[in-house]
C-alpha cells in the first residue's frame, strides 16, 4: 500500500484516543506501516479532538493533507460533518457513530443541530460513501468506539486489516473485565 489516510474525529471524552491507538495497532498487525498523531490541545470533555492515521510507505508527515483522507471515522454527528468538510477526499468514505453532543452554538440556540440529511447532502456533493452506525441497545456509551471499530472490520474498510488484527490490537491495550466486555461487543457486531 502506497498510502491510505484515515482521519478520526470526535468530542473530548468519547474515546478517540483508544480507537485511534487500536486502529494503529491493527494496521501494524496486518503487516503494513502506520504512522499517526492525536491532536488534543485542550482536550477537555466537550472540545473537538481528532486523530490522524496514515497507512503505507508513501506517508511522511503524521498529519493528513486537507481534503485527501480516504476514510473519515467520527464518533459524533457534528464532528462527522466537520471531518468530511475538512478532510475527506472526493469519493472517500465516511463512517460515523450517530451520537449527538451538541456544540455550544447549538446549545445557545444560534444554529440548528446538524441532521443526518445534512451529512447525506454533503456526501452527495463529494460523491462520498456514508455508513451511519447506531446501536439502540448499547448499555454503555463509552463503547461506541468499539462498535464503530467492529463496523470498520465487518465492512473491511481499512485495506488489508482483518478481524483478528483488530482483536489482537484490543488485547494489547485492554485487560481483564474491560477487555472481555469490549471483545464481546466487537464480536457481536463484527460477526
Amino acid at each position, binding site marked *: 500500500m502506497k*498510502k491510505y489516510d484515515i482521519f478520526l474525529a470526535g468530542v*473530548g*471524552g468519547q474515546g478517540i484516543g483508544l480507537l485511534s*491507538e487500536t486502529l*494503529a*495497532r491493527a494496521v*501494524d498487525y496486518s503487516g503494513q*506501516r*502506520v*504512522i*499517526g*498523531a*492525536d*491532536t*488534543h*490541545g*485542550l482536550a*477537555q*470533555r*466537550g*472540545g*473537538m479532538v481528532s486523530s490522524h492515521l496514515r497507512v503505507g510507505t*508513501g*506517508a*511522511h*508527515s*503524521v*498529519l*493528513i*493533507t*486537507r*481534503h485527501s483522507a480516504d476514510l473519515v471515522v467520527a464518533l459524533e454527528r*457534528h*464532528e462527522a*460533518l*466537520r471531518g468530511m*468538510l475538512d478532510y475527506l477526499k*472526493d469519493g472517500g468514505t465516511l463512517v460515523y457513530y450517530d*451520537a*449527538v*453532543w*451538541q*456544540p*455550544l*452554538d*447549538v*446549545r*445557545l*440556540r444560534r*444554529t440548528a*443541530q446538524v441532521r443526518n440529511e445534512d451529512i447525506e447532502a*454533503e456526501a452527495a*456533493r*463529494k460523491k462520498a460513501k456514508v455508513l451511519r452506525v447506531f446501536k439502540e441497545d448499547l448499555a454503555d*456509551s463509552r463503547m461506541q468506539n468499539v462498535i464503530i471499530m467492529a463496523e470498520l472490520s465487518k465492512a473491511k474498510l481499512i485495506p488489508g486489516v482483518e478481524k483478528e488484527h483488530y482483536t489482537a490490537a484490543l*488485547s*494489547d*491495550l485492554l*485487560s481483564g473485565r474491560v*477487555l472481555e466486555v469490549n471483545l464481546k461487543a466487537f464480536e457481536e457486531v463484527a460477526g
Partner: protein
Amino acid sequence: MKSMGEMLLSTGGGSEIVIGNTAIVRAMLEAGVRVATSYPGSPTPEIASAIASIPRERNPMYFEFSVNEKVATEVAFGASINGHLSCVFFKSVGLNVAADTFVQLSMMELIGGMVIVLGDDPGANSSQNEQDNRHYAHLSYTPVFEPATPSEVYVMFKQAADLSRKLRMPVIVRLSTHVCHAKEKVDFGPMPVHEHGNKPLFCMENGPYIPIAADALKMKRRTLHKFWELKDLLEELPVNIVEDNSSERGVITAGAPYLSLMDVLEEVEDKPDVMKLGIVHPLPKNRILQFLKAHKEVKILEELDDVLEREIKAFAYDNGLTTRILGKGDLEDWIGEYTPDKVREVLSKCWPDTFKPVKEPDSPVKLNARPAQMCPGCGHRSAFHAIKLALKDTDITVADIGCHTLGYLEPYRVGQVLLCMGHSTGTAAGLSMFNDSRRVVAFLGDSTFFHAGLPGIVNAVFNKHNLTLIIMENGTTAMTGHQDHPAVGRNFNDVSQKIPVRQVLEGLGVSNIREIDTYNQAGLKEYVEAALEEEGFKVIIARHPCMLKFTREMRKKGKKLPRPVRVGEKCNLKYVCVGQFACPSYQIADGGRVWVQEDLCIGDRSCVQTCPSQAIEPVE
C-alpha cells in the same frame, strides 16, 4: 495487555508503536539518565506518564514534578554537577520561566551531562504563543538537536546525552507538538548496563562555578571555546540527510517540516534536492556551503522564525556565493505549524511553476468551531456562574493559566486579559492604580499559585494593592492531566507533606481570606460581593475538586456515579441551565425543549440551584 513499563525496561529492546514522548523515555534509560525533572505542560506531560508506567522499584531514574520549570532546571543542574546525567523537560513557554537559570548552564562544567527537552508548540495548539525557542539556544550557546519522528527522538536523545557528557555542556533536544505526539513503530536497541554510583562528584576544581566579576568572562570564554570545538565535531556527526533529485533547486529544512515537505514532493514531478539538518544550532557550515554551491536556488523551509535563514545567508555572504537564497516571504510564512498544507502554500509562493496551493472545495455548509468546554460538574462552572452575578459590567477580570482560563469563553466571559502563568495578581495590581471606578478581580489556579503565583501575592501584601484575588482550587493540575501539586499531600513518587493554600496565604500576611465550596453558588456570590466592597487585598479560595478526576477515580474503583438529572415538567423554558450555566449535558431539542444528555451528565447536581423554575430533578 502490553505493559509500557516492561517495554521501556526490556533488556533486549525490540520494536513497539510509541509516541515521541514515550520513545524519549526509553532513550533516557538507555543513556543512563539518573535524575529527570519537569513541570507539566503540553505537549510534554506524556513523558512523565511513560515514566510513571515503570514500576517504581525497578526504575533506575529519579523523577520529580518540581513546582515550576526554573526549579526543575536547577534540580537537574545540581544533579549534573554532582556527576549524574540529568534531564529536564517542559513546554515551550516553560523555558521563559526557567530562563534565568537556563542561560547560565552553558557556562558551567556539567560533569554528568544534562539534556534539556523542549516541547515547542508551533500553531499554539495549547500555549499562549508559538515562540521559537531556537532563539534561546543562540542566546546561550547551547546546541540543539531537532528530531522529526519518534525514531529520531530516540536516537537523537542518546546522541545529545553523549555529546553533553563529553563536552560537559547542556544540550537541547527540541521537540514540537506533533513530534511529541507522533506515533510510529520504533526499533529499540538493547539496554546497556549502567553502573550507577552514589558518590557525589561535585568538585570546585571543575569550576569556577561562581560567575562573578572576572570569572564571568573567563567562564564565557570557556563556553565559547567548547562551542567552537563543537562546531567542528558536528560536521562529522551523521545527523543530516541529503536527498539528491538532480535538481538545480534545493531546500534546506529540519524537524517536522521536513516530513511535510516529503508529502508535498510525493505529488510533484520536478523535485528539488533536500537537505535535512539534524542539529539546528550550531549549523554544519561546510556541509551547508557545499549544498549551496551545488544549487542555483535554495529555499530555507523553516517553521516559525528566520533563524536558519539569517545564518545561512551570512555563510553565503562571507563566502561570496551567488546562489539565490529564498527565505521567508510574507508574514504568513512566520505564522502557524508547517503542516503539509502549509508547506505546499509556502513553496507555491516561491516556486509557483512547481507547487500549487490546495484549492478549498466549494461547499455551502459552514460549521462553527467546537471550543473546549469545562467538563460536566466542573467546580469552575459553578464559580463563574455565581461570580458573574456578583460582578458589574464595568469590573475588570484578570484570567490566569489553567482550566479556569476557559471562563473567558461564552457564555461566562469572566477573564478579560491573560499573559502567562501567575501573572494575574501583578497585572490586577497595575489595573487597580489610578482607578477609583472599576473594580479589579484576578483569578489563579492552585498549581499555578505555587508555580509563579506567590511573588505577585507577596507584592500585593507588601505594596498594599487594592484588588480581589479568587483562587480556583480544584486540588490538582487539571489541564495537563491531573498531576499532583504541593497542596495535595502527594508528589510524583510518594505521600508528602501537604502545603495548604490557606496556610501559605496566612504565612505571607494576607489577612482578608474567605473560603467556600463553589457548589455553594449563593454563598460564593455573597462573598464576592462583600470582598469587592472592602478595601485592600482580599483573597477568596473558591474550592471544588476536579470532577473529571473524581469521576475517573470512581469508575476505576468500579463505583457507580450518582443518577443523572433530567428536566421535569416545571420547566418553562428560561434556558438558564443551557444558556447561562451552560453545562454541556444540557441540549436543545427540536421545538426548543431542553433535555439532558445522560452520556454526559455525571449526576453532580450543581445545576439544580440555577433553575429559576426548580425543574431539574434526578432521574428515577
